[in-house]
């Protein structure tokens, strides 16, 4: 199922915030429209301009799986910002 996504138009991505990021963003989730072909890194850069003091060491998960910054996003996906974890 790796048919190439169209490179034109826009995609909608839901972004989720947790813990310290949720408090800074003032909400648990927001939707973003992005140019088709945008990557995780592109979205992180955009978020960095909007959210004050986005802490260092934030990882990203796409549809509940950790994803590298060069992962291309697709319409309807969920991107979660994962600040440094402290479970256990």
């Amino acid at each position, binding site marked *: 199922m790796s048919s190439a996504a169209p490179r034109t138009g826009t995609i909608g991505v839901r972004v989720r915030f947790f813990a310290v990021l949720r408090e800074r963003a003032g909400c648990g989730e927001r939707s973003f429209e992005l140019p088709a072909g945008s990557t995780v890194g592109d979205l*992180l*850069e955009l978020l960095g301009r909007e959210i004050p003091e986005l802490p260092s*060491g934030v990882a990203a998960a796409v549809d509940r799986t950790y994803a590298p910054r060069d992962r291309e996003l697709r319409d309807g996906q969920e991107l979660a910002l994962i600040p440094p974890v402290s479970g256990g």
Partner: protein
Amino acid sequence: MTSPPAPSPRVVEADVSPDPIDPSRLVERVGHPDEGAVVLFLGTVRTRNREREVTSLEYEAYGAMAREELAAIAREAAERHGASRIAAVHRTGTLRPGQASVGIAVAAAHRDAAYRTSRDVIEEVKRRLPVWKKESYADGSSAWLDGHPVAGRAGEPTGPTAGAAGPSGEDQP
């Protein structure tokens, strides 16, 4: 590419929930007369952390992902060390000192596999389970704990976001 990890007969339970952790239930879930050893790990809330008196701890989780990730951690550890059965749970919500935040029960034919698997699971939980804790102190203040940046499993670490990194440790108590 984003499908949940394959189910494994070795993982009898992997849950992230507000339910209190029952040690004997976890032990019973993994117990089996073919196995010779069970190791149970409980992480519990301490009254003191970094010289401050903790009155309660709040655990927040990315629930849907945390459940899948905990199952993956358990499966990988069991396969790596040859354990037979794992039940692992992580709490969410408000916990008081003395209460368990995480419980991991591992059964294996031999004790070495059980210990290694148990240790591996808790270390990976601390490294990558999408869970965060906020401590509340006797003086009324509270703070998110400094955590471990996750190195993405699917590739290199995601690293600091360009141009947006705050000062290191700014979310410490």
